[in-house]
């Protein structure tokens, strides 16, 4: 009996005894796919880096052309930005349809993602709108989001998911700013980043399951943890205006993230979890122990605890083989 047949037979036996469910088997299968697929460990190729730099240079060129050239009419500015962006998007669509040129389309889609919102900004300005107005910002981000959402729906490319995340975040920030008419506590901004971070983490988890979209999960995890733990820490405040709830719950969240680094076998969780644990130790030491014990002793305690956190990082990484 081959190992494959042996494995399938074993699964059949486990299923007969109801030891594993269908979903659990599927989960295990998809986990295997996403962990060992070449897509997951796929780094940006040198050509993609060059595409990115090229797209950035083209976009910066268009930016300077519009802002540094005197006497350009609004319609010419719109042509150099919005229309040029749409043309680039169309070229990207054409190239994407040809197998051997598909990777080049990445550069043209990037240029379009830079220039379309910029062009919309110029168009709103030409229409007499105050582009600094939050409502206009919400409109620009909303239109850009809708545009690339449709693009993703039709073409299903990772780069469009990335654009949707960026424009979606911008739209969410603008929309929530739009809702606020008066003064608001700073905590609101922290809660907003907390929600964005949490949303990124869930989105990253969703995308990780598909080998094609899995490369995006790393970016989402990293920014998600940064936003989530960063805002949770800031919500704790500082003595005497600290928030006890957030100061107490923070270590639970950090250890939760460290636990997830093991269960999800993800290094981003481990790195950021450890860094925030160190930051928390430093914060709490400075906040509560620097006066009573004296600053030098507090520093020593802080140092020892940070070494402990560092050891925890190395221990988890080695024990669970997190590359």
């Amino acid at each position, binding site marked *: 009996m081959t190992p494959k047949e042996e494995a399938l037979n074993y699964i059949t036996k486990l299923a007969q005894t109801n030891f594993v469910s269908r*979903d659990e088997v*599927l*989960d295990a299968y998809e986990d295997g796919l996403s962990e060992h697929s070449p897509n997951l460990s796929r780094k940006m190729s040198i050509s993609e880096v060059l595409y990115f730099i090229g797209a950035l240079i083209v976009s910066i060129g268009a930016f300077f052309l519009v802002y540094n050239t005197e006497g350009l009419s609004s319609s010419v500015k719109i042509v150099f930005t919005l229309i040029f962006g749409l043309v680039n998007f169309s070229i990207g669509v054409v190239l994407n349809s040809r197998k051997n040129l598909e990777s080049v389309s990445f550069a043209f889609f990037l240029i379009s993602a830079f220039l379309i919102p910029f062009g919309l*900004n110029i168009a709103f300005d030409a229409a007499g709108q*105050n*582009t*600094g*107005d*939050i409502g206009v*910002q919400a409109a*620009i981000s909303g239109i850009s989001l809708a545009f690339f959402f449709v693009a993703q729906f039709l073409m299903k490319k990772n780069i469009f998911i990335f654009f949707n995340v960026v424009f*979606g*975040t*911008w739209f*969410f*920030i*603008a*929309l*929530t*700013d739009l*809702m*606020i*008419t*008066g*003064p*608001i506590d700073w905590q*609101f901004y922290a*809660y*907003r980043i907390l*929600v*964005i971070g*949490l*949303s*990124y*983490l*869930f*989105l990253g*988890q*969703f995308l990780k*399951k*598909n080998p094609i979209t899995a490369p995006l999960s790393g970016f989402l995890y990293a920014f998600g943890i940064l936003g989530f733990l960063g805002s949770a820490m800031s919500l704790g405040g500082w003595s005497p205006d600290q928030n006890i709830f957030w100061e107490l719950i923070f270590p639970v969240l950090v250890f939760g993230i460290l636990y997830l680094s093991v269960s999800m076998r993800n290094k981003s969780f481990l790195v950021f979890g450890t860094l925030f644990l160190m930051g928390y130790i430093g914060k709490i030491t400075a906040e509560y122990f620097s006066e009573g014990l004296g600053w030098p002793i507090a520093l020593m305690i802080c140092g020892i605890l940070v070494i402990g956190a560092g050891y925890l990082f190395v221990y988890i990484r080695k024990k669970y083989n997190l590359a």
Partner: protein
Amino acid sequence: MKNNKDLWTLIIALALPVLLIIVMAFYLYLPAIFVKPQTNFIYYSGSYTENEVSYKVVNNRLTVDYPTIYNQNNAIRPIILPNSTIDKNTAQSSSPDVFNDATYSWPDIYLYNTLTNESQKITLAQAKIYNLSTDSTSPDGFTIDHGSSGGGFPFGYSSGNYYTQYLKKGGYSKKLNINYNQNNPYNFNFLGWVVK
């Protein structure tokens, strides 16, 4: 094929921002239906000219604070307060720069009706009648605060409402219709809540 667990992950990812927007809507808009401010306040908007008086509240009553004015030799020019006991003739004979009330600029004082959201100009004599509380929070729990300075992602918002004043209580905030001094359109000086 995605199973239900994965789909739920996506639903949660998208629902979280929507949920925050719903919570914000309740927090920001719901209080406006129920919250009714009761306490009025008085304020003035100065122009910061050299000879302009300012107002302050001492022992719950409005008083006038006269500015120190310097002459060309950078020496303090003498002044005569409205209720001064100094013999005006003597003072005038000792210095040619004696001032009286007419010499000063007097910023307008306003009574703000928080219920109707209107400013009503009042005289100094009328303002002095009111019993004023200089606490930052009114007896019914409201504060006056300015808006945010703007700034956003990625183009930056230039239209921050930093100089707009708001009446605020928890999530409730209402824009105030302040009559600003024409020479200094952002100057707002809260004097006190009108208490019984």
